[in-house]
C-alpha cells in the first residue's frame, strides 16, 4: 500500500481524502504546508523542492507505519511536491482518519514533524533580489576547526 508519494504536479486533495475513507472512521484530520512569501526576513518569490526519492519513500512509509501504530489510527497518507512551486502552492499534505479526533490530530502532527526532520528532501528558496539558497545548507557550511597538538615542546 502506497501511503507516501511524491508529486511533480498540484496535489489533488479531494482524491487523496477519499483513500482515507473507512466505515470505522469518525473523522479525518489533515495538514497542508503552503509556500509562503518570506523566510527569515527575506522575500521569497518561489521554491524548488528536490528529493532523494528512493530513500525518502522508504523512510516515509516507516514514519506513517509508526504513526498508525503509535496512535491507533485507521489510515494515514502523505504527499510531498517536488519541482518548482509558486507562493501559495501546497508543498505537502498529510491526512489521517481515525475513530476519534484526538488520535487523528496527534498522528497528523507526528507525521508532518517526522517528515520535516527525516526525509531527504531539500528546498531552494529564490528571493526577490535574485539570490537563492538551499535552506539549512548554505549558512552552516563552515569548516569546523581542527584540534591540534595542544602544547608546545621546549
Amino acid at each position, binding site marked *: 500500500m502506497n501511503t507516501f508519494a511524491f508529486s511533480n504536479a498540484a496535489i489533488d486533495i479531494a482524491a487523496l481524502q477519499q483513500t482515507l475513507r473507512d466505515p470505522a472512521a469518525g473523522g479525518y484530520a489533515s495538514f497542508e504546508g503552503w509556500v509562503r512569501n518570506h523566510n527569515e526576513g527575506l522575500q521569497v518569490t518561489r521554491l524548488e523542492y528536490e*528529493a*532523494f526519492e528512493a530513500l525518502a519513500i522508504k523512510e516515509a512509509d516507516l514514519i506513517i507505519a509508526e504513526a498508525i501504530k503509535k496512535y491507533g489510527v485507521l489510515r494515514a497518507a502523505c504527499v510531498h511536491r517536488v519541482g518548482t512551486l509558486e507562493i501559495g502552492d501546497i508543498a505537502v499534505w498529510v491526512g489521517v482518519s481515525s475513530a476519534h479526533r484526538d488520535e487523528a490530530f496527534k498522528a497528523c502532527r507526528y507525521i508532518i514533524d517526522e517528515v520535516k526532520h*527525516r526525509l*531527504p528532501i531539500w528546498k531552494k528558496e529564490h528571493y526577490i533580489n535574485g539570490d537563492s539558497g538551499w535552506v539549512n545548507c548554505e549558512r552552516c557550511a563552515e569548516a569546523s576547526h581542527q584540534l591540534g597538538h595542544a602544547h608546545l615542546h621546549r
Partner: protein
Amino acid sequence: MNVHSSIYGLVLAGGASRRMHTDKAALIHDGKTQLQHAYELLNKLCERTFISVRDTQTQDAIRASLPQIVDVHNGIGPLAGISAAQKQHPNVAWLVMACDLPFVTEDTLQYLIRHRDTTKLATAFRSTYDGLPEPLCSIWEPVSASRVEEWIASSNKCPRKLLINSTIQLLDSPNQHALDNINTPEEHLQALSTLGSPSISLNVQYFALFREQAGKRSEQLNTVASSPALLYTELQQRYGFKLTMNQLKVAINNEFSDWQTTLKSGDHVAFIPPVAGG
C-alpha cells in the same frame, strides 16, 4: 654474552581519536584493522606483545581477542600505557608503538632494535619535522620505569617532554615518512594511496547543494576510499564541499548507513545535506 633485557611489544591503542571522529585502531586497510597490523608487526620482533587499553575498552570487538595491559592511570595519555606495562613486566624493555603509524615497517623497527642503547633510558627516532624525539615508536628500558612514575606524578604527562629531558639514544629515521601518523581522514586517505590500497568503483549520487557544486547528479568513480568518511573527504577535496560530516547523513544502496561502513565495488553512495522538507 647478551646481557640486554628482552623486548616486549606494546601497541598503544587507547586514544580517543577526536580528530578522526572514529576509533583509529579500528580503521581497516588490506582487510585488517590498524590495531591488528600493529600487533602482528610487533609480535614478529618481540618476545611477547600486548595492546594497551583503557579499562572501558577491554571487551570491545577489535580489542577483546588480543593480549591486553589495562591502564592504571586513566585519562593521561600514552604514559599511562607505558607505566602499566612496566609494572606488569618490570624486567623487560618495551618497544612501544602507536597503532596509527601505517608506514612503520619491519625494517623500521629492526633498525630501532639494532641501534638500541641499553645504557640509556630509551631509544627513539628523531622526528623529521621538528628534530625532537618521537615517543610513539621507541624502546623504553627497564630503568626508565622510575622516571615514568616521576613524570606521571608531576603535572606534566607528556611522554615526548620526558624523552626531551632524559638521556636517550636518538636515531635519525631511515625513511623520512616512516613515522607519519594519521590523525585526520585526509591523512588516512593519503596513507591508503601511498600504501597502494586497491581501488573500488562506486556510483555516487549528488543532491541539492552537492548536485550544484559537483555539477552533476551522479558519477561512477574509482577510489581507494574504503568508507563513506574517506570518500566524503576525497569529494571535499575534489569539489570543495564545505559541509562537515557531522552535518550530513550518508546512504549506501538507498539505506541510511554509517560513516565507517566498508564500501565495496558497485555500491551506490549518497551524502545527505541538512534536509528541509515540508
